[in-house]
């Protein structure tokens, strides 16, 4: 029931933020903050009480489950479940939600109530995605989170927002339809085999089907998730959406929405069709390596700082795709840690870009340059997250990428070695943007006289993100421990299914 409460908190919180917005902008902001804090408290409670992995291991990694019939006629339940993987992604989402509210404090001045309503409801949808264990319910949440996100981009975005919002919607909605087809196909195959119509995740695990049917159904899921992740060549919606979205939108897109794609691969695309997924692994891993390298190279070529950061997401998430198809516990752990690290560091970078745009009224790097002496705090923090993003050991991204590479290396030396080249690509784009924005002589195109550095509100948020980045970098064990039963369970499911079929 606690999971339902989590959703209710967000749904009600969103409505309350909308209502409060008609009264005062700040009230709406505080209501949203309160909502996320309550959510975080619930998450933290679950984390602390289940930090002891042994007790969870007996339940196959599930911490809490909830199930009531919804549309019994079609075998659809309202079924939620939470394991370490869901919990970590939920914590990340709520934290970034909190960050988004704070970062929009001065940026969003119009329709503040409706803005926060959309923000909170996007996250409510995302939380649903991370918890749904009924495939139909999963699809419902999957689509539900898109609509408020669409509004966030289309209403509060930058100059080219309509194009970006439509592109975002068409890509994700279109690929979502493929998934729906695949879900129905899977349920139908299961019905033909067993005579019961159900969308229950656990019932559908290990459904017997022909190799061809499995391949096609798997592909439906894969495409939906690969678009969301995004993997090259399905990534082109992302730079536009990120660039045109308001800062909060970019933070949520990069930090949370992309992770739903990765989550889908973890939870559905591989465990439901282990054999098909393993046959598909070479293709997926090729796409992953291409994403890592191509995303990084294209990022390097951008002149719009926000677009650059957007492309780096393609590169970072490639390590997750790699990890999923390496499919051993080490790689899976690494993949989740990449997600966490990427959520924090890229979120921080989007905040930084947003703050820069608010102050300099541009995202074009050719117009910036030499801002270090004028914005020393922003420069220092920018440098910190730039080097975190390029995978410096001791900071969060390295831990995830290393484990993902180690796991992949066991599965395939070639893919892991090629992916390791991402280290070079990352250092190139990071150092270049750092120089073009903060170093060099001060440009003449920006009025530097009145620039204000980070204030207490922004500095505090950044400090929290810096601390988390270092913490994951030097002692990620609490996260690894809570993930372990879930990922080990997942791995066993895959093995068991493949054994019973093989």
């Amino acid at each position, binding site marked *: 029931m606690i999971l339902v409460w989590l959703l209710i908190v967000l749904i009600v919180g969103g409505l309350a933020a909308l209502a409060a917005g008609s009264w005062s902008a700040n009230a709406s902001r505080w209501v949203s903050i309160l909502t996320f804090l309550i959510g975080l408290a619930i998450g933290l409670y679950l984390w602390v009480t289940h930090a002891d992995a042994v007790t969870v291991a007996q339940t196959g990694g599930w911490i809490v489950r909830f199930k009531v019939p919804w549309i019994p006629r079609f075998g659809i339940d309202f079924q939620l479940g939470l394991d370490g993987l869901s919990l970590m992604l939920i914590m990340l989402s709520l934290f970034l939600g909190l960050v988004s509210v704070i970062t929009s404090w001065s940026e969003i001045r119009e329709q503040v109530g409706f803005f926060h309503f959309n923000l909170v409801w996007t996250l409510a949808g995302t939380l649903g995605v991370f918890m749904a264990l009924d495939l139909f319910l999963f699809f419902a949440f999957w689509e539900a989170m898109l609509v408020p996100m669409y509004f966030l981009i289309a209403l509060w975005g930058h100059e080219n927002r309509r194009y970006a919002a439509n592109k975002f919607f068409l890509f994700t909605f279109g690929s979502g339809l493929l998934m729906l087809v695949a879900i129905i196909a899977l349920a139908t195959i299961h019905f033909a085999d067993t005579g019961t119509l159900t969308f229950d995740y656990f019932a559908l695990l290990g459904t017997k089907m022909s190799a061809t049917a499995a391949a096609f159904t798997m592909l439906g899921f894969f495409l939906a998730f690969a678009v969301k992740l995004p993997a090259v060549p399905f*990534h082109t919606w992302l730079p536009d959406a990120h660039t045109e979205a308001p800062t909060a939108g970019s933070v949520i897109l990069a930090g949370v929405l992309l992770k739903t794609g990765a989550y889908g691969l973890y939870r559905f695309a591989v465990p439901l069709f282990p054999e098909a997924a393993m046959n598909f692994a070479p293709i997926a891993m090729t796409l992953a390596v291409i994403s890592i390298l191509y995303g990084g190279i294209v990022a390097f070529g951008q002149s719009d700082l926000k677009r650059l950061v957007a492309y780096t997401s393609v590169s970072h998430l490639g390590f997750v795709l790699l990890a999923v198809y390496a499919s051993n516990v080490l790689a899976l752990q690494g993949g989740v840690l990449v997600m966490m690290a990427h959520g924090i560091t890229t979120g921080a970078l989007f905040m930084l870009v947003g703050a820069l745009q608010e102050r300099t009224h541009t995202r074009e790097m050719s117009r910036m340059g030499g801002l270090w002496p004028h914005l020393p705090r922003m420069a220092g923090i920018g440098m910190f997250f730039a080097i975190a993003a390029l995978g410096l050991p001791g900071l969060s991204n390295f831990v995830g990428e290393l484990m993902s590479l180690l796991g992949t290396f066991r599965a395939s030396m070639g893919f892991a070695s090629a992916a390791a080249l991402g280290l070079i690509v990352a250092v190139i784009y990071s150092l270049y943007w750092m120089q073009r924005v903060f170093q060099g002589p001060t440009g003449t195109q920006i009025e530097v006289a009145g620039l204000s550095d980070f204030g207490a509100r922004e500095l505090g948020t950044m400090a929290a993100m810096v601390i988390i980045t270092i913490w994951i970098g030097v002692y990620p064990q609490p996260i690894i421990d809570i993930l372990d039963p879930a990922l080990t369970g997942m791995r066993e499911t895959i093995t068991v299914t493949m054994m019973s079929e093989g």
Partner: protein
Amino acid sequence: MLHLLWLVPLLPLLGFTTLVLLQRVLSRTATAIVGVGSVGLSCALALAIASNFLLAPPMGGAFTQTLWTWMQVGDFAPSISLRFDALSLVMMLVITVVGFFIHLYSAEFMAADRSYLRFFAYMNLFVASMLVLVLAGDLLFLFLGWEGVGLCSYLLIAFWHEDPHNCVCGRKAFIVTRIGDVGFLIALLLIFTELGSLDIHTLMQHASAQWPVGSPVAIATAVLLLAGALGKSAQVPLQTWLPEAMAGPTPVSALIHAATMVTAGMYLIARTHTLFELAPPVLLAVAIIGVLTLLISGFSALAQNDIKRILAYSTISQIGYMFLALGVGAWAAAIFHFLTHAFFKALLFLSAGVVIQALDEEHDIHRMGGLRTRLPAAFWSYLIGSASLAAVPLITAGFYSKDLIIASVWSSPLGGPWLWAGAVLGAFLTSVYIFRSVFIAFFGEPRTLVGQRPRARALIALTVLSIGALVIGFLEIPDIFGGGVHVLSEFLQQTLPRSAARPEPARVEWLLELVTVCISIAGIYLAYRLFLRRKPEAEALASTEDANLLRRFWGSGFGFDWVYYRVLVGPYEWFARVNRRDVLDVFYNTLAAISRMLYGMLRQTQTGNLRWYMGVLAAGGVVLVAIVVLT
């Protein structure tokens, strides 16, 4: 006492943290106290721990301290652990002692700089990372220090970031070394996958138990580690970043790009020596790369006019000697040369720094001249450093260490006359290029006014390093000089293998000594004839077309940069530039354009004109009937 080891790297790290967090509060004096003091404390502690280690050696000659498990997933459990043995003791002492004096010097050298605090923050972070690198007991933790020093190197090269050129240099250093680091990282993946551990001690035991000598996996591992070492230590073909690294403040060049960080590659090979001994072809490659590097950079140093670039090429060349020593299995000789080099090269850079500051940022030796009398402190320290670098016999430290390497190359079964000849030629070049700078910059006519002169803190640093550059060599004296001293190599034998060199008959040894002595003196004499007592014939020869071409070729570092730009950098930038709009988006945009076009075409049919609809209906009917009738 030993259990306080973790404090040695932690103290500079605390210095860094303090400086960063309190940057708004600290005065310049307080900054210097924190910045220099943290390294000073670390140095004092290191000395205490080292003497403790020497007086009461721990069991097995090594002390291990595990602080915590970094992360653990199944059997993958790298730890934040320290391992203290003879090798790390020597490295730690050099880093803290030389590091402390360079910090002390910097407190004065950087006094006028706007970003005084930022400088000390980066320097402290560097010392902390470098100490992690040499003290780490786990290869992954070592990699943390390894990347950390790379970052600090970048930050400090690009320290004066208002000048974009400095940023380009910093970036180049980071990117080129990162290329090598990919090799290192893949080596980590391979080692863990094959040997199941990243603890250095454990993995070396497993390797010698599991891998036969010369097995492909051993060779692959050694090659990958070597890639990392080549990048960090600026050896051919990844040497191109070091001359550009001179864009940083001079104390940075002294500490990072001469005394400590650039020798990390040598340290890595020495640290994982077992893996290299299992791969003899790679060990041979190390020796050959060493010789190539020392020759190429020796020639390049001859054609430089920027005093710091001369020293930079010289550093590359001297590390080449260390690699050569490693390659022929003279492990202790490599460490010995590292030790003496740290002192004399830091000394050379610091005295060059005094000159540069006194002449108001003048780097060109041809515009110096006559500084012998006007900057005596700088002259004497530069001369001592040069003498040590040129291996002036008997009285300098550089003589003993270089001599040991050259002798080992001759008499080691892994070496031979060819490598030996290269090393001797390199020694000759060294004498010529360094005394070229001495004669041009410090003798002859004065050409620039002298401004600021060094004061107490700089003088202390110069004096201490000068003494070091002279006396450190007495740790290791060849047998033929009255009995011989082998303090260092005997101490290092606790950790490193015994030298592969066989003892030679006394007369061969005498002959070898004579060659090195003569070579060193001959080089200095040639420099004297060419650059101080210029002969008209020499002038004429030097100004011919061919000579100029050769000088340009040498000066450009044998054209490596030119090739890399055309083959790697240029195409990469070109692709990124032309693909800015992302070619993959073309497909989707075309799709969108086609649907829009179809929409436009179909919309044309919706005219609202009843006659048109009837006509189309009729035409459709005719076509339908025609199809039915005709088939």
